[in-house]
């Protein structure tokens, strides 16, 4: 029985280390997406605020379960050879990698499509939350994705 991996880490994400575990023998394409901490954010009032750092928290059991399901569905729907994800938790400084999505397939079309499908679903569905730390000393929880019921 396939076990659910841990898709969350408190350690800095090292791309080369992840790539060393991926088998590319029957793949014609690989797409790597990395989401980074940027230096500005637009709040609900439309104000641009300067970001100093981010903090990510998660409800880890469910987050791992849902990421596993999203990757499995992506592999099936887009006929991928592989789909990988690692999301960082804890405090992140500017430019650090918050999340990495890697898709591999025979051809690039499904790689690109699946990669976007995965990150869109992770952002929308997985119980991970971002708190923004601004240079003016204030903090704010990011608004998040509204779920239709």
């Amino acid at each position, binding site marked *: 029985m396939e076990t659910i991996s841990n898709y969350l880490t408190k350690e800095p994400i090292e791309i080369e280390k992840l790539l060393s575990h991926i088998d590319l023998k029957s793949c014609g394409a690989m797409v790597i997406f990395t*989401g980074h901490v940027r230096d500005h954010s637009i709040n609900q009032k439309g104000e641009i605020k300067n970001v100093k750092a981010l903090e*990510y*928290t*998660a*409800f880890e*059991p*469910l*987050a791992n*379960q849902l990421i596993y399901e999203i990757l499995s569905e992506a592999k099936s729907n887009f006929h991928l050879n592989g789909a990988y994800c690692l*999301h960082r938790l804890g405090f992140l400084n500017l430019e650090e990698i*918050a*999340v990495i999505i890697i898709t591999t397939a025979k051809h690039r079309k499904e790689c690109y499509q699946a990669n976007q499908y995965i*990150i869109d679903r*992770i*952002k*929308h*569905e*997985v*119980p*991970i*939350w*971002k*708190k923004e730390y601004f240079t003016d000393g204030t903090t704010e*929880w*990011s*608004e*998040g*994705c*509204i*779920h239709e*019921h």
Partner: protein
Amino acid sequence: MSLKQTTIQIELEFFAILKDLLSPNWSVSFDQPLTIKDLKNYLIRKFPQAEDVLKYSRFSTETTILNDNAIVDKNTKIYVLPPSSGG
């Protein structure tokens, strides 16, 4: 013959902004089964300061999102998840 009234004890755990607005945990008892929608409406009445977040929050077990019609009819722990902002 007297009917035994069953009390349903729900342990709630809040995350992210809800944890800041309310508390990490909350316990509540009900004297009859209720739906997740009933529970959400109860929490909105109880904590009006968190209404804007609660109305868009999801409720779950450790491994499953619960829809509005899911029925809680026994002692259980439920996790209250504000809108996601990962990625």
